[in-house]
């Protein structure tokens, strides 16, 4: 087990290094020069040379990478050329919004998909099962940017249930109106997750219910409800965990779109803004952060799996 974990941790470090290189070179090898953005009309050859030297941009690329990586490891992601804000503070302001969005959406998604899958799997091909399977298939073809536009159209504009775009208030300022604003985007994100979790769980449950130990439990006279929650759901919770882990990348992406429409100042909003301003350092910082979070989360889920099911480590 310890050896297995060690090997996995080594692989994690390797992947993280490659991801950091990828992010660094991605931004540096592409055309465009940050000095043009910073100096604007003062972009004379002399000024440019001075600035390049100051920023260390005239060193060989591998040296720049090592310097950058050293700074990153010390928690310094650089400073925006445009706003002169440090990237860490940009991240610090934006992350809570993404975290809140994803957290609420996952609570909704789990809360809806588990009972729905249990009820559907109990009577496969029953009315509820057919309705939920068909509608979840249709939902697959509804990307978050369509759902959010329709959501705003129906709930904000027609029924005035939720506030419209641009009404974000920090949680610390007014928790109630913050939650009220966050509910619509979280619901939109939740729909995508519900579809994934429901379809996975339903399939899993239906095959589990054919196992002998379920028949055994039934013949012991245990109640249906008890069997569903206790015997059938338990083994499936693993696949749910895996799906949730794989889903996280999609959630972050979905959150970008939702934030952009509702003007929620989260990571996606900050990313698009800094792209529009050609703010290399911020784009680099956000990209790196998101990539690292996704990679590390997958690692943690891997790790949880080995605890739940030690056979994985032995193979």
């Amino acid at each position, binding site marked *: 087990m310890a050896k297995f974990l060690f090997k996995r941790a080594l692989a994690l470090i390797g*992947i993280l290094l*490659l*991801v950091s290189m990828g*992010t660094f070179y*991605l931004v540096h090898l*592409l*055309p*465009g020069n940050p000095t043009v953005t910073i100096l604007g009309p003062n972009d004379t050859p002399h000024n440019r040379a001075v600035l390049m030297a100051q920023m260390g941009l005239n060193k060989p690329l591998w040296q720049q990478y090592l310097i950058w990586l050293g700074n990153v490891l010390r928690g310094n992601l650089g400073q925006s050329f445009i706003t002169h804000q440090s990237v860490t503070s940009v991240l610090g302001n934006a992350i809570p919004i993404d975290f809140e969005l994803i957290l609420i959406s996952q609570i909704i998604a789990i809360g809806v998909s588990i009972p729905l899958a249990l009820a559907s799997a109990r009577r*496969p091909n029953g009315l509820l099962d057919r309705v939920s*399977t068909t509608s979840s*298939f*249709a939902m*697959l*073809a*509804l*990307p*978050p*940017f*369509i759902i959010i*536009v*329709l959501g*705003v*159209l129906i709930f904000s*504009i027609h029924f005035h249930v939720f506030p419209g775009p641009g009404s974000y208030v920090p949680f610390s300022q007014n928790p109630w109106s913050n939650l009220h604003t966050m509910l619509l985007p979280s619901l939109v994100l939740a729909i995508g997750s519900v579809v*994934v979790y429901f*379809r*996975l769980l*339903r*399939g899993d449950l*239906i*095959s589990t219910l054919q196992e002998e130990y379920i028949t055994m439990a039934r013949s012991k006279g245990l109640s249906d409800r008890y069997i569903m929650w206790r015997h059938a759901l338990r083994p499936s919770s*693993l*696949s749910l965990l*895996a*799906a949730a*882990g*794989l*889903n996280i*990348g999609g959630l*972050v*992406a979905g959150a*970008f*779109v939702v934030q*952009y429409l509702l003007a929620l100042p989260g990571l*996606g909003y900050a*990313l*698009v803004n800094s*792209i*529009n301003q050609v703010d290399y350092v911020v*784009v680099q910082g956000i*990209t790196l952060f*998101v*990539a690292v979070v*996704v*990679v590390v989360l997958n*690692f943690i*889920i*891997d790790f949880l*799996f080995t605890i739940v099911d030690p056979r*994985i480590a032995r193979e």
Partner: protein
Amino acid sequence: MSDLAEQMIPADKDPLEVAVAPVRKKRKAKFGFLFWFFVAWIGLTILASIAAPWIGLQNPNNGNFSSLNQGPSTAHWFGTDDLGRDILSRVVYGSRVSLIVGFGAMFIAMLIGGTLGMVAAYRRGAVDTFVSAASYVMLAFPALVAVIAIVAFWGHELWKITIIVGIASIPLVYRVVRAATLSYATREFVTAAKAQGASDTRILIKELLPNVLPAMISFFLIGVATVIILEGALAFLGLSVQAPTASWGNMIAESRTYLQQNPWLALFPSMAMFLFLIALNLVGDVLRQALDVQDAKL
């Protein structure tokens, strides 16, 4: 992707795809009415996007400032947008962007990822180890973030987006094709062909490709749907083809300013995208189910 994913999910399936796949029915998959309806719909959409200039549509980029933000009428079936442009015409022309990116990117991914996958699964050894490791690293990187970053600095032209999204899709295609090929590479007919002195190229093309192709086609369709969603998200963030060129994604994005006055602006492109995506998903899904039945018969 991680070991646990492989653990949980049959090796020849993309985990997310498995997560969303319906429970496989034991009975033979039927090509029912819905299947043919959506096949026809895909055909119709492709046809309309190709024939757009010759089917009597108004110019998608010409505004008419005396009829702004109008609802559907006989003159404009889908209404007009904030510049008085015909929405029907923009939806039809906009399909070109989605279709080019969707089919183009998946074609690139299939060509490169598919070839690599087949060769890696057939030859195994160092090539397989190296390419598989590389595919894991690429998969670890969140695709949308990478694509956003590259598009942002390289450019928003259609062909660039197609290439970027195509390359980003290579690792997933590689894994699917590699797994599908693996299950055939050790079969008797391959050994027999080898014994008869067939070259590696011949075995790959004549023996393995026909067996892997059906799986590739169904994955291709679902992949196109995924890419179209990705392009839509890019367009929504203002990072796809630039105005005035219409795409479903940027039409939906533009509509957000006028939701109150003109909801049609959002509804028609959303509808077009939804129907096309559901058609791709359903046809891909039915094909895959039909395929599994064949597989089980062997």
